[in-house]
């Protein structure tokens, strides 16, 4: 039991290895094997929800030249546990729904997806910066392989673009971690806030920038989103389900886990910058989504809009918004995962995913239409879904910070239905196009992959307490130092107006 978290990390890696070496080179068998293994891993991760797996910390190797020792330091809390569930359950869903897309090369697909799962879990549980960085960067490799093997006609260039762009964002983080190791003599997360707080302002600033850059690219935060639309468009649907549903959440996770606790004062100081960038992303992303003529780019910009909204909420530091962040991350993962699995089916059958390429699909494939409409409505935050709870709490937090932030961010509530309903209308309603011919009703496997995701979206919408009590509370606790720093900044103005009371803070200098 003591090594349960380690077992949970090794399990998908081992499964990936099994899939790689024992692959019978036959699609159906690989598919069954991959699904079975990923389901086993997911079941293994279920006890995370009642925090059954204890933390562990094992010395691993010394970082040469720094005096710091890297620890295999693993722990789980509400936030890690819920994001891990997203990873754990989206993986079998992606494998289950990938049959039509992947075809004969299922062995390679399963291998890469399971490897990615192992690395994402590693990033979520690691409390050691070096191990975190290894996993965070390592994820790129299986993802790039997936794009390269199964992507569209521009796949090679897209894979490169994706890897280089995100790597460029995180190389400063590597240097920052190295510098920290040398200066602090440790890379354990728990020991760092106190050390960083004592650093001179300019050094703190450089460190802050390095951390922010790495995670802002991953979210993505405007203007660092250049990789996103192109990557989503070229990546096969089931892989985007994982990329958008789970991997993109690691950017926000990075802000919550590292940026806010390590740099509370700087976060509070620059909160407005992030809020403005987030608002531009929220509204601009939705506007650009309306202008898209292919479904995957549209959903990419929709994701940009939704995750920018989360970023705005995060940087208000409001308790309501932090709970909203937790719910919205899970909710967005479920709805966008379902949407991309369904788009993946359409693409696999017809080879295209343009907004105007189909018509009247609802009479050819009623179940596909029903599931797509439900997933789109969840994505548009219809009350009753977890997406609504998330958006509601986020907007409420923004309102408390400043009503105008909520009003501007709220525009995405309107714009969100514009592009989603346009897509639904073009694809599923209207006259049947000749090009709709190859699109058939979804296979039972795809339906089985999508249904639990949609069920989750509604279940967590009606009973969001299971997320807010654990993950919400964790997010709130992680934001507390930043919230206090922000509160301390606010009364800074009135103090000079009261000369009678000398500010005690001034004397401590």
């Amino acid at each position, binding site marked *: 039991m003591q090594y349960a978290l380690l077992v949970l990390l090794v399990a998908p890696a081992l499964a990936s290895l099994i899939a790689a070496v024992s692959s019978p080179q036959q699609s159906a068998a690989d598919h069954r094997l991959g699904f079975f293994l990923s389901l086993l891993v997911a079941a293994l991760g279920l006890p995370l929800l009642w925090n059954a797996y204890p933390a562990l910390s094992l010395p691993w190797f010394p970082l040469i030249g720094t005096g710091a020792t890297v620890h295999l330091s693993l722990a789980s809390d509400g936030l890690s546990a819920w994001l891990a569930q997203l990873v754990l359950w989206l993986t079998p869903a992606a494998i289950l729904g990938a049959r039509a897309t992947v075809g004969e090369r299922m062995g390679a697909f399963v291998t890469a997806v399971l490897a990615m799962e192992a690395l994402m879990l590693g990033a979520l549980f690691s409390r050691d910066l070096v191990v975190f960085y290894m996993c965070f960067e390592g994820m790129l490799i299986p993802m790039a392989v997936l794009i390269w093997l199964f992507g569209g006609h521009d796949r090679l260039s897209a894979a490169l673009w994706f890897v280089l762009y995100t790597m460029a964002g995180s190389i400063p983080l590597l240097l920052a971690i190295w510098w920290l190791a040398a200066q602090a003599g440790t890379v354990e997360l728990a020991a760092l806030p106190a050390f960083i707080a004592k650093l001179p302002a300019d050094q703190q600033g450089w460190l802050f920038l390095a951390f922010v850059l790495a995670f802002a690219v991953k979210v993505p935060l405007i203007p660092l989103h250049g990789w996103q639309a192109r990557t989503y468009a070229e990546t096969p649907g089931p892989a985007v389900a994982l990329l958008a549903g789970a991997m993109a959440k690691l950017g926000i996770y990075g802000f919550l886990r590292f940026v806010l606790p390590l740099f509370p004062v700087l976060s509070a100081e620059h909160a407005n910058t992030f809020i403005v960038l987030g608002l531009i992303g929220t509204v601009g992303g939705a506007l650009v989504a309306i202008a898209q003529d292919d479904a995957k780019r549209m959903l990419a910009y929709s994701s940009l809009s939704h995750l920018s909204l989360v970023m705005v909420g995060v940087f208000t530091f409001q308790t309501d918004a932090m709970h909203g962040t937790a719910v919205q991350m899970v909710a967005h993962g479920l709805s966008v995962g379902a949407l991309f699995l369904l788009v993946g089916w359409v693409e696999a059958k017809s080879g295209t995913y343009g907004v105007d390429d189909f018509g009247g699909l609802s009479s050819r494939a009623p179940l596909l239409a029903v599931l797509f409409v439900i997933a789109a409505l969840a994505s548009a935050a219809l009350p009753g879904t977890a997406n609504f709870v998330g958006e509601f709490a986020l907007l409420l937090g923004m309102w408390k910070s400043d009503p105008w932030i909520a009003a501007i961010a709220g525009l995405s509530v309107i714009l969100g239905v514009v592009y989603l309903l346009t897509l639904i209308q073009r694809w599923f*309603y209207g006259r049947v196009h000749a090009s709709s011919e190859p699109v058939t009703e979804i296979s039972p496997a795809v339906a089985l992959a999508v249904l639990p995701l949609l069920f989750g979206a509604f279940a967590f919408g009606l009973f969001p307490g299971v997320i*807010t009590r654990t993950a919400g509370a964790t997010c709130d606790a992680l934001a507390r130092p930043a919230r206090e720093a922000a509160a301390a900044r606010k009364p800074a103005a009135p103090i000079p107006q009261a000369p009678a009371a000398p500010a005690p803070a001034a004397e401590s200098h």
Partner: protein
Amino acid sequence: MDSVLWLIPVLPLLGAAITGGLALAGAKDAHGPNRGLVATIAVLMPALSFFLTIAASVELAKHPDYPISQHLWTWLDFGSLHLNASLLFDRLSSLMLLFVTGIGTLITLYSVGYMGEDRGFARFMSYLNLFLFSMIVLVIGGSLPMTFLGWEGVGLCSYLLVGFWHRNDDYNDAARKAFVVNRVGDLGFLLGMFALLAVVGSLDYERIAGFFQQRDATALAGQSGLIAAAALLLFFGCTGKSAQIPLVTWLPDAMAGPTPVSALIHAATMVTAGVFLIARLSDLFVDATLPVLGLNALQWVMVVGCITAVWGAIAGCFQHDIKKALAYSTVSQLGFMFMACGAGRFDVALFHVFTHAFFKATLFLGAGAVIHGLHHEQDLRRMGGLARLMPFTGLIMGAGWLAILGIAPFSGFWSKDLILESLFASGGLGIAIGVVAVVTAGITAYYMTRMMVLAFTAPTQVDDETRNHIQAVPATMAIPLVILAVGSIGAGLLWMGLPAAYGCHTDWFAQYLAPVVGKAQAAFAPIPAPPGGHEAVAHGHADAGHLTLAWSMALAGTVAAVIGAALAVVVWSKGYGTAKPEAGTSTAPTGFGGAWTYGFDRLYDAVVVLPTKILGLAGYWLVELLVIAGLTQLVANAARYVGDGYAAMQRPRLRMQLALSIAGLVAILIIVAANIPKP
């Protein structure tokens, strides 16, 4: 009773799930699922809800001051929110539910006849049940977020039903427009909830009412800005759902939906949700006294209602499509309801909601019978002389017509008269609005009579082919029509209290709602003492003026109606004459290009829709592709040389490379595990 309250919404939800499942299961079948089975389930579930509502209302009658409520589970519990998923069954929900489930059941039954031949019958029935579920949740929810759940739910169902015949892209456009415009209002609703939460600290209805009813003047004064913001934002939400200016444009286009949908959703129930919400939050609205642009919240409600009523009535005079004429009439009548709210008479507004539900449903379903009979003809220019061809339908619609005109003793007379009366009684701005309202009542009589004359008595324009094949009205359609027509005639008597013979008070309806809106009304206008009117009768003096007002309003309303109707008969009794529609001219709803909303559509196109599109395109082509992608391409070009090595990887080697790297990872982990210091 309080433990089975949840069944009232859940039964139609169950109906929706079952019929929806049947529709999906039978999708591949040439005939679709078994119609008898679908019809039985779809009608039975709302009917059961109706009976449960009656049972709950009987229970409620025993303890009028203690609403039945049920806490289901803890829904939102974090930060500043501690909200149960709860149901609240008080006099207001009881009244709304009685006619929502009652008329809902009747219209579902009517649909069995009207939509029976349609290939998507099961899907239609599923949507109708889903709509009823949402509408019931809207009404019975114990807090604003619960109401919002139903609020957006009915918007969704409206979208699904307007676009029900989804082969037609005009209909799809109309459906999308309805959803988007409603969402604009919903943003107001959301922000209004936040403002209210900041004031009250809770979104639970009983807490909100309790907070405002204490009327702690200093506490209220300190937050007057937030209170006004909350009221106006929530009212903005109401203009969306209830199709008031400025969010009016979607309702006429929504007539693309099948006629039973127009009757149920776009006349009797959903569009009255805005009036319901204002009544539900009457305590808030009465206390939102801070003037914004010169008017306080209730004055805004009154002015917006008045402008919409006039605009809708004038637009109604120029319609060629029988359903669109009725749609503009609905817009106009909703304006009357908001005027009553603005005058502080929430009970009167709800009374008009109640009578309107009957007579407008009658008119719409009657129009449906006409359209059904004429094989999907809804152009007034191709009707005329129908009184002889379909006398039953003519009689039914006649009852609805007299009711909407406000001729005594038909139901509309009582409610419209009370609205005029309350406007004049509120004084000041109310009197000016009241004068406009009387004129509008005249215009209403004109356009409704015009529609009836053109359809039923003018020289017939129906071609021989159609005339010889008039479709009969089946029993499933006739029974609801008769019941609703009886309602249109008699529903008004409820105010009189099915009269005093039963020992009830003469304003039974107001008495019924007094536990909910009485305190707000008393705070708004302490002098006319509307809720306690029966006690004032004994005091005589103030009541003499009240009676004079009542009689003069009855007279003014009736005279206006008679003049309007007479004018219409004079102008239109010869029909269109030679001005026949050109071949191929359709009156079918045309998405964004509908007549008369055209002005609004043009405006919104220019001010909202076009800039949105331009911003989107500019954002994509200029910012995304030129700036963002261009800059990244520069970096990428530099990195391309590195990438050449990466590109040399070839497929056969990939599996091996992957395996090796994973093996390496696992090996490292194993070494680490082996080196773990033994405790």
